[in-house]
């Protein structure tokens, strides 16, 4: 009986590895499809940003305008007029990687379908890994990593499915997912095995799963922030009347406007911050059960705290007049760097109580 179980476990573990490798192959194809999307998209000539910024006083009308102003007997519904706050550049969002070209768009769609397929394969890999060890698949860094990239891809696909304008992030996302899986399979790989007693707790499910979700979503926020910084400097370049290089123009012109990117990353970060807070608290409760203290300044705890304070800093910065925009963005990146360091650096270089079997 147990022998049989052991045999299925090994074959499941093997299946998991095969699935992860297949997902990498599919993500690789998605990567090339995105490259094709960007390449074809570069053939379009769009210069809306420059137009919007340099067209002078005659600004484009606001987003929605009351269209029919009477004149007929039709009883029209009241239309809402919106206007943006002062101080923000009024720049339309770029057309996306495909640049409005049909061919680029086609490749973009192929890339997304491939990403979805890669995601499903990776998800299968994570699930079969969990089944093979008959526990939450979060006992070591290999398992964290494959879950991390799966959640990041899942979050991206979910945003797409919700109709959010996030296609521009596709290439970066697929690239990082590939890097993450590459690192996981080459350096962090650990054979599937049961857990050491210290990790036996239902708080494992709660604490580690939310930690991974937070990381994956913070990652998407950070990607948005980096693009914001590029796009913002591009826009101010244009606003100063200078002419950025061809490549820079071609790439950045297709991204959403700086203020959209800024809002996007703020929303993402603000939305996961409470979850991150919860993650730390869940960790403290678990530590209280496992080690007899809820907070002991273990390196992992310290860096979770630093990450938390750094994100709190970012949220404060957004509320303080002189710190909006770029300065706040740097804080967000610092906070994310803390998160990454907490994940790789602290696990591998500083050994505290949070050291897991075979890294």
């Amino acid at each position, binding site marked *: 009986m147990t022998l049989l179980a052991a045999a299925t476990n090994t074959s499941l573990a093997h299946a998991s590895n095969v699935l992860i490798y297949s997902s990498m192959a599919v993500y690789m194809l998605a990567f090339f499809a995105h490259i094709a999307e960007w390449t074809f998209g570069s053939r379009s000539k769009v210069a809306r940003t420059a137009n919007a910024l340099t067209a002078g006083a005659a600004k484009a009308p606001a987003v929605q305008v009351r269209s029919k102003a*009477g004149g007929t*007997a039709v009883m029209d519904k009241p239309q809402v007029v919106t206007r943006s706050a002062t101080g923000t550049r009024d720049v339309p969002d770029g057309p996306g990687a495909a640049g409005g070209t049909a061919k680029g768009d086609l490749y973009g769609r192929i890339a997304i379908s491939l990403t979805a397929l890669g995601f499903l394969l990776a998800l299968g890999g994570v699930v079969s890994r969990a089944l093979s060890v008959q526990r939450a698949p979060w006992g070591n860094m290999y398992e964290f990593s494959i879950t991390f990239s799966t959640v990041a891809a899942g979050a991206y696909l979910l945003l797409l499915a919700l109709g959010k304008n996030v296609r521009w992030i596709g290439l970066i996302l697929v690239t990082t997912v590939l890097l993450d899986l590459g690192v996981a399979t080459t350096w962090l790989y650990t054979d599937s095995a*049961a857990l050491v*007693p210290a990790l036996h707790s239902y708080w494992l499910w709660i604490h580690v799963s939310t930690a991974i979700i937070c990381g994956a979503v913070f990652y998407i926020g950070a990607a948005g922030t980096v693009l914001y910084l590029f796009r913002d400097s591009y826009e101010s370049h244009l606003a100063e009347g200078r002419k950025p290089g061809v490549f820079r123009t071609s790439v950045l012109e297709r991204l959403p406007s700086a203020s959209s990117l800024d809002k996007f990353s703020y*929303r993402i970060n603000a939305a996961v911050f409470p979850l991150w807070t919860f993650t730390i608290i869940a960790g403290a409760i678990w530590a209280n059960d496992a*080690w*007899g203290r809820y907070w002991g300044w273990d*390196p992992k705890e310290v860096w979770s705290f630093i990450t938390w304070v750094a994100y709190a800093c970012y949220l404060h910065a957004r*509320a303080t007049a002189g710190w909006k925009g770029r300065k706040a963005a740097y804080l967000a990146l610092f906070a994310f760097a803390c998160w990454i360091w907490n994940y790789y650096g602290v696990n591998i270089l500083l050994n505290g109580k949070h050291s897991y079997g075979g890294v």
Partner: protein
Amino acid sequence: MSTTDKAPTAAPDPAHDSAASAAADATDAAAAAQLSTAPLEDPPAGGPAVGMGVLGWIRWFWRQLTSMRVALILLFLLSLGSIPGSLIPQNRVDPMKVEIWKGKHEFWVPAAEKLQLFDVYSSVWFSAIYILLFISLIGCIVPRTWQFVGQLRGRPPGAPRRLDRLPAYTTWRTESAPDEVLSYAKELLRSRRFRADAAGNAVAAEKGYLREAGNLAFHIALIVLLVAFATGQLFKSEGGKLVLRGKGFSNTLTQYDDFKSGSLFSSDDLPPFSFTLDQFDAEYEKSGPTKGTPREFKAYVTYSKGAHGTPAKTEIEVNKPLDVEGSKVYLLGHGFAPVLSVTDPSGKVIFKDAVPMLPQDANLTSAGAVKVTDGYQDKNGKKEQLGFNARFVPTFAGKGQGTMVSQFPSPDFPVLALNAWHGSLGVDSGLPQNVYQLDTAKMRQFKKENGDPFSQLLVPGDTMTLPDGAGTVKFEGIERWATFQISQQPGTGAALGGAVTAILGLAASLFIQRRRVWVRAVTGEDGVTVVEMAGLGRSESAKLPEELADLAAKLNQRAPTAPAPATHPVEATVEGERG
């Protein structure tokens, strides 16, 4: 969500003279103010005005400290200040590592000690940062709370003069009378849980107060957390105890092997309880690459509350401490204790005990010392003490593979290696001694005929006969022991409460939008009512125009759009105009 936008100040509008426009701006600003209780402006830079004296300085300092900018800087410093403590070992976490670090980086030790880098989290500079931060926090919360209470008791601010300058705006003409429209509007807004009030020719409504309440609750919860944490640190106690199977522990200071406590702890605070270790189970991975990795540890104990409580049985596992009388008993580690009996030359048993050995590796290769302090007389009747250096492996590699390194953590092939000493153990010197080590300064080793040190490998049941008829040592069997950490920390419940409040407050503060809606209805020149609606939030959000559109559609049902007049009235054509 989290921006302190002022009212959107409109771009110059040639159609209006600047004085009117300035007045309109002022009303707009008033309407937008108080959407948050955040300090509006950062205090002016520079010191207080000359000649303000001490009081002026204090006031200036206080204003600085409670500003958002300084809160931000302090928060940032707090995160930077926590870093060294994660890179340099900390006394409170692991004193051993501190010593090792000091050995490796001798050059830096004096500087590191000056900067209290081995005690970062209780250092003067770290404390200064968080104390300032929390003073700032209190200084920030108190006025904000008052302000918020004021806002709750007051009414939503009246409508700005020019609603069409607000972030979301709509208008239509209707044949319903202005009063009717306004009362519909009030009813509608109230049914959507806005606080709505009619003032003059407009209804002012506001919603989302929970955002501010959540924000205040979050910041207050931070203070609760800090106080709870500090109380815990000051009053906590934590001690370790090694318990042999069959033996017990009762919670008094003298019973502990080691004990640490916060600075305000007194030993009277130790709650009375006791427990005995009935059984200890350990399970390990039996095969595969992770062979020998622990799978499960379980200590079966009988405990009783108070001095003479009724005994109850329970199990303690790694993640499942025993909670008794406000103390928690954690299972920390375990190991083996070979049971030995020692006879003197006359054959009398002078020592019989289980002697705990300290694990040296993951497979529980263990080392220790057996000390026979009393009752031994050598052949000549001279009083002496005996000592044995012991090494124990639960799973021996086998004869010929003679290293005393265990192959597996379970006692599958237990072997004990002993060498024997006689003389003075030095235990009477009054100096504390390590029970796991033999101090051989005043002892001589038993030797074989050929002069080599005498030592022997024993399996359970074996007896070792000392040279020259000096007595025997019998390896009777194996006992297990477990170490427990007994800790109590007051304030844990408060900390948990604070943490939960913090999350709820945070969620409210980040996910709820505070916003205002105004509805104005006036009779136009041609006798038809002009309805104007506008919305204002803390920041631009796609939701605000949607909500306004929805409200407008509802109101429009009850106050339908009137047929357009033959000539366009000026007010109605706001097409595309952005002011």
